[in-house]
């Protein structure tokens, strides 16, 4: 046992993947042609009905379809048929817009809440009530008041990524060590300078953790929101393929959503590592 741990872990991951794909292949391979079917009639039916083929695609079907999607990810064949790359770009853009707005609101507000016990107590009941509301519950209200489905989707992303950031920022700011604040006070540092040079660096790891939770939630929510409002985005892609009962493409969409979500999370975890400090 001289090999390193990462190598062994990677090997184990590959074995698990192979077992999973193998089991999937065997489970979906069963195809028993139904006898005594009129060929004229069979022509009008799909393979599921005529050949007893499982409605679930095998890993090979998915791989083949994935290849066709990846080979031409940015095609545009009209309003309702765009490549998977274009759809991902739309979803990421919506998440970026809603998430960006949430940062603009959550960070300053979180600072105020964290620094003032009075405001913290006053706003607490509102935050506690708003926090557990499913972001999609806002959708009908948003559609009715904003009167634009694209903006409504962005609003839903905004509202769902707001709370973790807000609460983490407030908590991070409130729990900056007393000694550091006292040192700042003895040195007669102004309030603005204190906020940027003492509190912000001290609270940054907690804030970034909140942002990382937020981006995860935002990415979960955008898929559901786009399934609801339609038009563009990866959520619409899933809905459109479900409409066609194309399980293969739905599986591909699931894979892609997972990969993009992982990439977003990775970016923020790198950022967190940049601002964290040893005590």
């Amino acid at each position: 046992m001289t090999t390193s741990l990462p190598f062994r872990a990677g090997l184990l991951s590959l074995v698990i993947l192979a077992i999973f794909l193998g089991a999937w292949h065997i489970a979906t391979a069963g195809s028993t042609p139904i006898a005594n079917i009129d060929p004229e009639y069979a022509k009008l039916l799909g393979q599921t009905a005529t050949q007893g083929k499982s409605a679930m695609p095998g890993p090979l079907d998915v791989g083949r379809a994935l290849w066709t999607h990846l080979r031409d990810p940015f095609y545009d064949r009209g309003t309702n048929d765009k490549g998977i790359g274009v759809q991902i770009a739309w979803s990421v853009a919506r998440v970026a817009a809603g998430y960006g707005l949430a940062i603009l609101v959550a960070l300053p507000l979180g600072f105020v809440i964290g620094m003032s016990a009075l405001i913290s107590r006053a706003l607490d009941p509102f935050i506690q009530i708003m926090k557990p509301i499913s972001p999609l519950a806002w959708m009908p209200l948003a559609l009715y008041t904003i009167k634009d489905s694209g903006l409504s989707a962005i609003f839903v992303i905004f509202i769902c990524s707001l709370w973790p950031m807000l609460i983490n920022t407030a908590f991070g700011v409130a729990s900056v060590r007393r000694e550091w604040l006292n040192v700042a006070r003895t040195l007669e540092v102004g309030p603005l300078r204190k906020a940027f040079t003492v509190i912000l660096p001290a609270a940054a790891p907690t804030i970034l953790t909140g942002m990382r939770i937020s981006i995860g939630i935002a990415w979960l929510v955008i898929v559901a929101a786009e399934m609801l409002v339609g038009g563009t985005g990866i959520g619409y892609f899933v809905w459109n393929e479900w409409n066609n009962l194309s399980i293969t493409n739905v599986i591909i969409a699931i894979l892609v959503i997972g990969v993009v979500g992982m990439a977003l999370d990775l970016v923020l975890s790198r950022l967190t590592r940049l601002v964290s400090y040893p005590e």
Partner: protein
Amino acid sequence: MSMFRNPFSPSRLNRSGCACGQHASLEEHNRFAAEAVDTPAASSDDQISQIVQSAVMRALFPHDESRRLFLKTVGASTALAAISQFFPLATASDVFAQGGPLEKKDLKVGFIPITCATPIIMAHPMGFYEKQGLNVEVVKTAGWAVIRDKTINKEYDAAHMLSPMPLALTVGAGSNPIPYTMPAVENINGQAITLAVKHKDKRDPKSWKGFKFAVPFDYSMHNYLLRYYLAEHGIDPDADVQIRSVPPPEMVANLRADNIDGFLAPDPVNQRAVYDGVGFIHILSKEIWDGHPCCAFAASREFVTTMPNTYKALLKSIIEATAFAQKHENRKQIAEAIAPANYLNQPVTVVEQVLTGTFADGLGAIRKVPDRIAFDPFPWESFAVWILTQMKRWGQIKGDVDYASIARQVFLATETSAVMKEAGLTPPASSTKGFSVMGKPFDPSKPAEYVASFAIRRG
């Protein structure tokens, strides 16, 4: 009607010819008349351009004698060519055909991916919108509630709706009252009751107690037809079975998952259930009420009044597309045009079976019903009255209902007949007609008595 006479004929006053003066002899006139009957659709455009040419010619040569002399010396076709060199006749004809400048050229029209929307969808790939100078984007939408909200929000200029929806919107059932109009019906017939394959032997509706059914929307013909059908067989649709509203694309998946026992749904959902071997077609909706309306082309009253020219051009393209879709020889071509991912996103064979009416019924037989789906744009006011009676019957609207006036306000029969005439079609003379549903006659002039005549009803 001198405007309609051919001004390029040098022998206008030559009485030795035929009665209309356009042909050299009576035999020739009759031959042309016979040909004209064969090709009526193409004539509307020709007629317009002829009228414009006539007007231009008369303006250039106001004196009949000098015009005739000019035509006689150079010949009609040379004269036409000569004039079109310095006067763009084609453009003049186009401007006239549009009847005024379009207030808005880039439009968005929402649709639900079902074959009922065929005219709205096919008008895009087949160029019916372009022909009217419109740049229409047809946008696929997830469900009826979303399409309603997006039209209310003015994200869509007009939309594909279920024919009861504009009525429900106008009377404020299920939403705030907003004046809505329905200038054209999309399709008649074209729905079916599909049951899960395991119910193969339960063909008698009396054995359906405890079933779970799906319909596309509460305010849909599907809901009213299914309720009607069940009630006629003694099944109370509220007490004996469960009827849920499920978006059409999710119906087959739900049927496969055994969440529902059957549905009354628009195509291609029924045919898709057969294609995937999960269901069979119990009856076509045409067997409940032959000629019932289903989906509609709808726009807010605001759009109709603030942009009359755009609205008219849009309606004209829809009506022309509807007329094109009604012809059986075009159906295969349409199926190929609307099946791709940009529109219905279904296998071509499924759409083709729906449109041609030669289809597998899911029980091993091939049925041939050419009018399984038909396309007729005329919004009969009596259709609206029937729909309102069913809303009243099932308690969706309360109190006294002024059936006739709501019907007239929403179903724009008069305007539609005008546009139909322009498109070379013959609209019916009256805007109401009687019909019967499952053998029971309906008299549109006595809606309240009709509602009262049902044993199973709410409110």
